[in-house]
């Protein structure tokens, strides 16, 4: 019954080696979000898609890119991971209606060596 699926759950990459994190949803939601969460901190929004419209947060580094090829899938690409990019990456979805909550995936924990 998983609704927001993130693969892999754990990802190890090397400093500077591109990495892609994946998110899929079975909810048919319009909006998909990517957050970065460091230990014991609030999730920080990186960007989100409303359908195909991409919305980047002003302080999201250029190193982070995203793709949404269809409604169900959204990818987070980190072009040249640095040590500071080690974090939990959370994907979330929502219908776009304000009253509706965001549904979060379990997250992918990224380790940069």
């Amino acid at each position, binding site marked *: 019954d998983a609704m927001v699926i993130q693969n892999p759950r754990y990802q190890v990459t090397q400093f500077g080696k591109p990495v892609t994190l994946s998110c899929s949803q079975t909810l048919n939601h319009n909006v998909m979000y990517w957050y970065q969460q460091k230990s014991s901190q609030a999730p920080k929004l990186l960007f*989100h898609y409303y359908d195909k419209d991409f919305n980047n947060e002003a302080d999201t580094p250029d190193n982070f890119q995203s793709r949404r090829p269809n409604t169900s899938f959204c990818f987070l690409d980190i072009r040249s991971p640095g040590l500071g990019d080690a974090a939990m990456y959370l994907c*979330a979805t929502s219908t776009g209606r*304000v009253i509706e909550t*965001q549904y*979060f*995936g*379990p997250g992918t924990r990224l380790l940069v060596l």
Partner: protein
Amino acid sequence: AQTVTQSQPEMSVQEAETVTLSCTYDTSESDYYLFWYKQPPSRQMILVIRQEAYKQQNATENRFSVNFQKAAKSFSLKISDSQLGDAAMYFCAYRYLRDDKIIFGKGTRLHILP
């Protein structure tokens, strides 16, 4: 800009007791929604309770209730009859009516003492 402040980084409560987590926010808008999310250790974030700003009545979900004070911009969460499974990070969050984004507070880590 809207902000959400949780002034208690950590709290502890004895099992079966009641605990209140504080949250204040700042906004110039009148139409918005407030949420409390729970993030257990190594588990995904889930919604605990939500409150529409236009509703005066405080939201309640089983053992969870809020004290929403719109004029004071305060939105506290009360957990009654605390259980071991309530141990988690709790995030207060705000969403403006015309925005896709949620603004989170820094969280309060709640420990339940057996």
